[in-house]
């Protein structure tokens, strides 16, 4: 197992969220429910992929600073197995129907905006700079996913039922967004990482307000996946991630010297 410092690990968490969700959104290419949404989901994915590149490029530099051969963004993306990935369980969940995709996006976007907002105040200038760039994009993403949650939640009987089912199915992956482990604790104390636990009340009130308008019920909290330091942030994933990576990594793994 690769041993590296907490900053490297934290940057992987930030970068992998964007990379994995971008790949999921890319799976909609050519089969979005309407052309405009096909374009929208892939544009959101493009922003997230661009952000992931910035985080992972920095991660590689930090890795080199830690005295190891620093990996490039491509090496980090294409040559790590699922256990090496540090993304949230939420973003690796399959696309499902469009309600599943929209709810996953909405729950993530609401958190992402808050997280990036805090990270603009990071003592690490590089992190603050990337966050300031990314938060502008994330703010646009959350406007769109919010619009769709309201429109589909407060829509037809069928769209409402599918939205509620998606909310109920994905809710157990939201607790992980606010779970702080030792890696993050050390960086929070150093003023580098954002205190994810402090984001939770803001996230909850924002989600509640939108769900009220969308006539969706916030599920009762029960078991939250990945919160006891055994989740995506620690490299313990659902089976869906390895299946997704098998597709995403097939070309560079089959043809290691391929150029494109």
């Amino acid at each position, binding site marked *: 197992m690769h041993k590296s410092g907490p900053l490297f690990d934290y940057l992987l968490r930030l970068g992998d969220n964007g990379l994995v969700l971008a790949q999921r959104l890319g799976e909609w290419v050519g089969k979005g429910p309407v052309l*405009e*949404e096909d*374009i*929208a989901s892939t*544009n*959101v*994915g*493009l*922003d*997230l*992929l*661009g*952000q992931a*590149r*910035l985080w992972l490029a920095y991660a590689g530099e930090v890795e080199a600073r830690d005295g190891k051969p620093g990996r490039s963004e491509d090496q980090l993306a294409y040559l790590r197995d699922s256990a090496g990935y540090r993304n949230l369980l939420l973003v690796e969940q399959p696309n499902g129907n469009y309600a599943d995709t929209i709810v996953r996006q909405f729950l993530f976007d*609401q958190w992402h*905006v*808050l997280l990036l*907002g*805090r990270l*603009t*105040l990071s003592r690490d*200038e590089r992190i*603050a*700079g*990337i966050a*300031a*760039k*990314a*938060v*502008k*994009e994330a*703010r*646009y993403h*959350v*406007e*769109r996913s*919010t*619009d769709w949650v*309201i429109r589909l939640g407060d829509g037809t009987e069928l769209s409402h039922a599918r939205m509620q089912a998606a909310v109920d199915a994905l809710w157990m992956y939201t607790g992980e967004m606010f779970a702080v482990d030792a890696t993050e604790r050390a960086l929070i104390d150093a003023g580098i990482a954002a205190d994810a636990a402090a984001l939770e009340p803001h996230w909850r009130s*924002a989600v509640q*307000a*939108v769900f009220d*308008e969308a006539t969706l019920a916030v599920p009762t909290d029960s078991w939250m996946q990945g919160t006891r330091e055994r989740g995506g942030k620690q490299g313990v994933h659902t089976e869906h991630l390895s299946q997704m990576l098998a597709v995403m990594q097939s070309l560079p793994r089959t043809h290691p010297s391929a150029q494109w």
Partner: protein
Amino acid sequence: MQRVEIRSSSLPVIDRVQASERELAAVWRAIGSVVDPEIPVVSVVELGIVRKVERVAGAWEVTVTPTYSGCPATRVIEDDIRMAIAAAVGERARVVTALAPAWTTDWLAPEGLAKLRAAGIAPPGAMASHDMPVAARPVTFGRPRPAVACPNCGSLRTAELARFGSTACKAQYRCADCLEPFDYFKPH
């Protein structure tokens, strides 16, 4: 006699300053000829992404800031800038990326806005909240969006068709008066 001597000895310095200013202007002109490959009516200078041009360690260094993190045009623009400078002054140039401060559409030059409109793309409105610290800005829901003027007939009776358009920086709109669909360069 002495006065003339002082003058003549100081002239080469002035010449050098003027020469480097002329060169700097030539480099800026060269960069100004590079257009955004996805919106070829505006130059990268009018787009506001060229932040600095200077001589560093005997070479031209151009600081560029990306529009959107994932914009696929960024690499092409960097290559085009290097080629334009090489063609204009016969020197290799470095292009460096600066993320902070983050690009905003408020940096689009006025002539760029006019060119966008002439090309049928509604130019962005001002990012009024940009000067607020990011963390202090509230996330609002159902925020009323300011009216976007149709670039074809000027009507304000327009509606958003989709939040995203043909490139990362645009949304799709339609005019209720002239019925033309059009791209809107999103305020960012």
